[in-house]
């Protein structure tokens, strides 16, 4: 309450540096964070309050109170309180431990040390004591304590490098730089302490990529943007120190503002169960009312006279009042329809299923020694109902490893394995890879299986040399040497990393660069090139070039870029080579590789000088500067000579294609949500078969304004419906409200496959309320949806959109911190574990190491869980209706006096002891078809999506079944007892014998039913089912024994009953008849259903039986088609602006920074440093337009 009030008030924030008193006026939040819910004092009341908010718990509490009223009590109090207390204590203990760990982590974070300038001195202070306005010193590899305004740093120009993995999941380094006025402050503590600038800025918000503010200092104002802010959660890298002023602290920081509240996730079965419990409660009330009215009438007609004769002589209660009391008494008796054991059993079953997930060896990834883990144990059956999967790309679908696979140089393909048999197979390790050991700087793991390239290099083929030289020269990579003397590349795009590394492995080693020179080692000799111009990359150009002068004085332009663009720039003499290379490119693309075309041009000195002058003029020009520059770039990048092309593989995770194919067969729609660029995303879409060339159309939405987006959506829709004329009528009619209903109709009428690609900035507009529905409608009609350049928040919004309007069960899978919000908001969040970042896993409900395990998680575990849970619920409701409703029938024969049919002990134990284990065993172990079947036949998954196994209809069938059984259970013994006499002439139609007969029949009927329901009889099922019956009889005889009666005569008044009743033949005849009569109709119905409407699993079981002797058929491997359209993309993961950074020399280090612990970590395993290098270099979430502003 307090917080929200304050938020409302705060429209802008005014912070004065080094002036705590001034800032205190505004009551900004301090830097302490709370994620815990309770403390020692509040735990009990709050936790109990929360627990009793659950309908079920409140209901049982209410029942307990009823039972304590002697006038009403018709059951002893212990029947309810024992299980209730048990359940509540268990939950409370679990909550307490959870919260304890939250306290612990809060404390750990709050007590982290940071250096703060207090009283003109640098002092150590705990994080929680850092205040807004303080100036904080950060050191390399430290976590940032709060959102800071960067003042100064150890690096030139006030630059500092940060890693934002915790914020957005990107592990590449980002540059922040301080205002030049403040960067002059340096590390001078006294000057910093005197710094008294006032920052006026926006109020706390969750936008990670935006910041607006003004710093007023020394009578001048400086505008502040996101480039000057270091956010909490970042890690300082490659910068030995920096100073910053705290702007937002604690809960106001963007990190905390972004961390959505963990919602308590419930499964749809849970919700259905709650509804059903309410219905049942309503049903109970109805029964209670009927019986109460019955009681009133009975008291009036019969009981009145009876009373005076029998008892109640002193009481003059009215029949209406008696009816009122009876109502409550019956509520107590009939409450066993929904016993607490239902909730406990559901939890136990889910826990069991979770353990099966944890134990599954087929989801264990030996590469990283990571088993699958069910982190939430309450969602398992929802895994069997997934309709939409939202997948992150990098690290989830792809390994985020770029490997240089192939190249085409001067019309010759290198890197192809010319072995026809093994051609299409994975290259096995047996095959001898090219020996790079001659290269001192070669990287160990690099493998290229073609010796011909090495030979060409050795032979000195000039084209090949030029090709590799280009790769070593034309890039934005920074190099540095670590202590061990190893060369390390700082790449901002993993593609480039792969290319430069490839060149390095072939002997063209990029060594170092200055703003004016590039030094490379060419087959052992150091050559320094003069860097004359750097024609930077941008999205329109889709290429980059460098102009260098080699030691011989020749000026050359080296260019690499998207083939489509570059091919237009070629010299006409290249035609022959062009068509050859073009074929090669198509071939590469067909294999899902990313391609780049490589070309060069020799320039003569004079021409270059002229051009250079023009460029300088253009740079100095005030108007149309950009246009003029790009014109000049165009001019010089012409008449290029084609060298060849490269092919880089963005390695997919293992088995992604199979998994995707299999999941789509299971009718699950997969959407890719990625922060990456459109081209990359589309490429991956093609690579994993989600986009194919067979698709009728791929709609790309990339408008920048709301109007554009709307127009694009409309067009796409028109296009879609235009091709399906049959629908056109329906579309016109569709009203907003009918829209969603229509969707299903639409889906069926749409033929052909469509795909939708939408950009983050378009998505921002499309998610606005009025366009939202159009977007959703369109997206749902498409087979594949790819959202690129989306922010973490947008990911969550998309998930929410589908969740809310489609009413479908969603699953989000991702590996990075940027997926956290999506993982949290989807019904089920899955984290890829075994990676560096843990955020996704921590926020997830399930985690495993490889995307392909999703198939097993859903198709096997999810399906089984859903199947078992539904079977369990059906049986449980059936059982308890059969168990309880006999009281209702009995009511008509006992003057509606709330007499129970059974012994109190039987009522207490029935659900806990006599019938709990068999149904639990079924709920945990049952299998309708084997795991192999469900993997092979993804269609088996569909009943879960359609919610067929347990829904309201099924529930009513179960209830009807239960009611029927209760009728049989009651009226057969009733009829038989009516005139029955025992074998020795004694009457056996007494209440206690009746109770024993009923109880025994019930236990037997219910056990036979579970025996029929259990389709997978393991030893455990045998033990539990037979054991339950045995337990029933042993407990029955024990409780009816003489010994126990003599000790507790009041508690066990049924002495001798079991013995005498069960000695009678006719009692057994009754039990037998009851069993036959209640089971046979069920068998009949099932038989009919199986023959008339066989389900898929029935068919599979038949088929299995028929094929039992034959060997299991070979697994159907989903075919891995590759589309052949060429998708060149230099733009992948490349960011504009680095060229300028290089030429300006801003990011050049004077000296090598001391090795940092972070780097040491990455170097620890020297074989994998390239992986670290190429880690995640997804673009910033900024849109294109913002890219320009980012220029340094």
């Amino acid at each position: 309450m307090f917080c929200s009030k304050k938020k409302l008030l705060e429209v802008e924030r005014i912070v004065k540096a080094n002036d705590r008193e001034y800032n205190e006026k505004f009551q900004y939040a301090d830097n302490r964070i709370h994620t815990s819910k309770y403390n020692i004092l509040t735990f009990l009341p709050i936790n109990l309050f929360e627990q009793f908010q659950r309908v079920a718990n409140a209901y049982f509490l209410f029942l307990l109170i009823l039972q304590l009223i002697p006038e009403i009590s018709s059951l002893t109090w212990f029947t309810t309180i024992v299980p209730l207390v048990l359940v509540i204590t268990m939950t409370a203990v679990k909550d307490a431990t959870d919260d304890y760990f939250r306290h612990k982590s809060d404390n750990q974070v709050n007590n982290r040390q940071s250096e703060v300038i207090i009283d003109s001195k640098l002092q150590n202070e705990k994080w929680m004591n850092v205040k807004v306005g303080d100036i904080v010193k950060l050191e390399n590899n430290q976590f940032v304590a709060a959102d800071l305004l960067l003042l100064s740093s150890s690096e030139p120009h006030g630059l500092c490098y940060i890693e934002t993995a915790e914020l957005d999941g990107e592990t590449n380094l980002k540059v922040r730089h301080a205002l030049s006025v403040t960067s002059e402050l340096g590390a001078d503590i006294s000057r910093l302490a005197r710094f008294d600038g006032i920052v006026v800025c926006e109020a706390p918000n969750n936008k990670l990529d935006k910041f607006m503010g003004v710093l007023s200092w020394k009578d001048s104002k400086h505008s502040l943007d996101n480039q000057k802010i270091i956010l909490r959660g970042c890690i300082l890298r490659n910068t030995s120190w920096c100073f910053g002023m705290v702007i937002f602290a604690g809960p106001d920081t963007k990190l905390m503002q972004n961390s959505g509240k963990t919602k308590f996730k419930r499964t749809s079965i849970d919700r259905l169960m709650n509804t059903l419990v309410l219905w049942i409660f309503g049903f109970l009330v109805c029964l209670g009312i009927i019986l109460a009215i019955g009681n009133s009438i009975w008291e009036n007609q019969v009981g009145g006279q009876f009373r005076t004769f029998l008892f109640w002589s002193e009481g003059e209660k009215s029949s209406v009042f008696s009816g009122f009391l009876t109502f409550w008494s019956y509520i107590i008796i009939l409450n066993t329809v929904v016993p607490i054991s239902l909730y406990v059993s559901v939890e136990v079953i889910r826990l069991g299923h979770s353990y099966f997930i944890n134990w599954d060896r087929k989801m264990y990834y030996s590469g990283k020694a990571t088993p699958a883990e069910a982190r939430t144990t309450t969602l398992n059956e929802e895994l069997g109902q997934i309709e939409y999967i939202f997948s992150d790309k990098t690290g989830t679908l792809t390994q985020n490893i770029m490997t240089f696979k192939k190249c085409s140089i001067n019309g010759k393909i290198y890197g192809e394995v010319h072995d026809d048999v093994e051609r299409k197979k994975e290259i096995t390790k047996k095959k001898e890879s090219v020996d790079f050991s001659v290269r001192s700087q070669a990287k160990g793991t690099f493998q290229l299986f073609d010796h011909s390239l090495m030979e060409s290099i050795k032979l000195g083929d000039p084209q090949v040399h030029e090709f590799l030289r280009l790769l070593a020269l034309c890039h934005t990579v920074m190099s540095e040497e670590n202590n061990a003397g190893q060369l390390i590349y700082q790449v901002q795009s993993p593609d480039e990393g792969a290319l430069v590394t490839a060149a390095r492995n072939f002997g063209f080693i990029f060594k170092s660069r200055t703003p004016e020179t590039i030094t490379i080692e060419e087959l052992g000799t150091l050559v320094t090139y003069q860097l004359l111009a750097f024609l930077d990359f941008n999205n329109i150009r889709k290429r980059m070039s460098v102009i260098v002068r080699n030691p011989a004085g020749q000026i050359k332009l080296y260019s690499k870029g998207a083939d489509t663009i570059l091919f237009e720039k070629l010299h006409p003499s290249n035609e022959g080579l062009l068509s050859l290379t073009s074929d090669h490119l198509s071939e590469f693309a067909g294999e899902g590789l990313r391609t780049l075309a490589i070309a060069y041009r020799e320039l003569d000195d004079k021409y270059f000088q002229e051009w250079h002058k023009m460029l300088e003029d253009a740079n100095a020009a005030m108007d149309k500067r950009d246009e003029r520059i790009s014109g000049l770039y165009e001019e010089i990048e012409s008449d290029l000579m084609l060298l060849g092309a490269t092919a880089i593989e963005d390695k997919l995770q293992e088995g992604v294609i199979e998994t995707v194919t299999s999941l789509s067969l299971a009718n699950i729609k997969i959407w890719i949500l990625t922060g990456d660029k459109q081209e990359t995303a589309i490429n991956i879409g093609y690579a994993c078969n989600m986009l194919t060339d067979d698709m009728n159309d791929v709609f790309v939405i990339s408008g920048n304004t709301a109007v554009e987006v709307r127009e694009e959506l409309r067009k796409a829709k028109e296009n879609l419906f235009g091709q399906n004329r049959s629908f056109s009528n329906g579309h016109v009619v569709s009203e907003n409200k009918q829209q969603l209903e229509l969707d299903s109709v639409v889906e069926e009428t749409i033929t052909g496959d469509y795909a939708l690609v939408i950009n983050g900035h378009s998505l921002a507009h499309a998610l606005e309320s009025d366009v939202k529905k159009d977007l959703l409608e369109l997206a749902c009609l498409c087979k594949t949806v790819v959202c690129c350049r989306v922010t973490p928040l947008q990911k969550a919004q998309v998930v929410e959109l589908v969740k809310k309007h489609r009413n479908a069960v969603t699953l989000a899978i991702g590996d990075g911190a940027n997926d956290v919000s999506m993982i949290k908001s989807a019904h089920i969040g899955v984290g890829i574990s075994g990676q560096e970042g843990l955020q996704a896993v921590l926020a997830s409900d399930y985690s495993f190491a490889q995307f392909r395990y999703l198939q097993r998680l859903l198709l096997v575990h999810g399906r089984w869980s859903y199947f078992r849970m539904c079977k369990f619920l059906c049986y449980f409701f059936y059982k308890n209706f059969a168990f309880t409703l006999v009281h209702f029938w009995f009511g008509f024969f006992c003057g509606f006096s709330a007499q129970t049919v059974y012994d109190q002990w039987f009522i207490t134990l029935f659900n806990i002891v006599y019938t709990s284990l068999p149904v639990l065993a079924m709920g945990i172990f049952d299998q309708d078809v084997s795991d192999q079947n469900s993997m092979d036949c993804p269609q088996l998954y569909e009943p879960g999506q359609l919610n067929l196994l347990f829904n309201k209809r099924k529930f009513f069938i179960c209830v009807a079944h239960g009611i029927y059984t209760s009728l049989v259970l009651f009226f057969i013994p009733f009829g038989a007892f009516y005139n029955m006499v025992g074998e020795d002439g004694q009457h056996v139609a007494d209440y206690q014998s009746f109770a024993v007969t009923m109880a025994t029949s019930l236990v037997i009927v219910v056990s036979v039913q579970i025996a029929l329901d259990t389709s997978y009889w393991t030893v455990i099922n045998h033990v539990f089912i037979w054991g339950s019956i045995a337990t029933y009889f042993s407990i029955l005889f024990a409780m009816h024994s003489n010994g126990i009666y003599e000790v507790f005569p009041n508690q066990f008044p049924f002495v001798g009953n079991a013995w005498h009743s069960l000695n009678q033949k006719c009692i057994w005849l009754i039990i037998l008849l009851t069993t036959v009569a209640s089971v046979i109709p069920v068998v009949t119905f099932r038989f009919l259903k199986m023959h008339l409407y066989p389900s898929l699993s029935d068919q599979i079981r038949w088929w299995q039986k028929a094929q039992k002797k034959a060997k299991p058929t070979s697994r159907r491997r989903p075919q891995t088609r590759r589309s052949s359209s060429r998708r060149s993309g230099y733009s992948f993961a490349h960011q504009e602006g680095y060229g300028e950074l290089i030429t300006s020399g801003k990011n050049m280090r004077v000296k090598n920074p001391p090795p940092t612990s972070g780097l040491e970590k990455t170097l620890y395993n020297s074989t994998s440093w390239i992986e670290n290098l190429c880690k995640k270099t997804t673009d910033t979430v900024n849109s294109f337009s913002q890219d320009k502003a980012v220029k340094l």
Partner: protein
Amino acid sequence: MEKEFQHHLSRMPENSAIKQQKLPAHRLHFSNQAIFTIFFATGAFCFCIGIILLLSAWKVQEIEINYTNICEDCAKMRENALNFDKQCTCSIPFNLQKTMKGDVYMYYKLYGFYQNLYRYVLSRSHNQLMGKDVRDVKDCAPFKVTSNKIPIAPCGAIANSMFNDTIILSYIRSTSEHIQVPMLKTGLTWWTDKYVKFQNPSFRNLSDHFVGTEKPPYWQEPIYELDTSDPGNNGFLNDDFIVWMRTAAFPTFKKLYRRLYRVKYFSDGLPAGNYTFDISYNFPVTKFQGEKAVILSTLTWNGGSSIFLGLAYTVTGVFLWMSSFALMAIQGKMRKKKLSHRR
């Protein structure tokens, strides 16, 4: 390296059948033949049992005489509580056309008497009835103590409402020779009731042990005078009392009253002829619109088998056969359909 390898191993889930969900199991799946066999067999079994039960039920000889209206005068008199100490007898002659062979049992049957009311069933003191403490009347509301606060023995509504008609069966060999049919008043109860559940405080001087208690308000004599002739049938051990205390499940019930003592004329059972029931009418039923009857009955192998069970079995058997034929027909049709589809 080796250490790392072991580390990997330790995180690898165990390869046990239960953890991998590969427990050897039998998949329950009945073939059509099996289902038909089960149906036919069960049907045949039920049908046979049903016929046997019906036949044996028809063999049972039973005479029921409802004397509520026959003894109308007495009934009227009993409706007035003030006449509780007045005697009223009623004699009902009847003719037994066929000899009742074997053991003959005499029951009384009450209609519309709710012995299964919740509060009624609870209103008894097990401690008292076990003879542990005759003054323990804790659970006996509303018949715990008399108006003088003296505890009632036996307390509670059940005991208070005990059936107290006396029924004597006489055989009229000729108009002059009325022979009282010898009847046994013991052996009517379960062993556990007689020896565990109900115990007198002492075998001797029974009345002494009931000092300080009062007889139930509707009783005519105290508990220790129920059968003064037989100490084993007196007090809480009285068979009629025990039989009554075993409350009936339904408002219409019969309870064993006497067994035929097969001596002399009656060694083969009850010979055909004229009989009278001499009933001393004490138990008022018209007040609550109930009825009462006296029953003479023989037994068969499974007790006094009722027609209901036999009928139910027969019907179930027939139903099973019918449904199995129907299922076969449907299944055959489906198979034909499938075959034609294949073609």
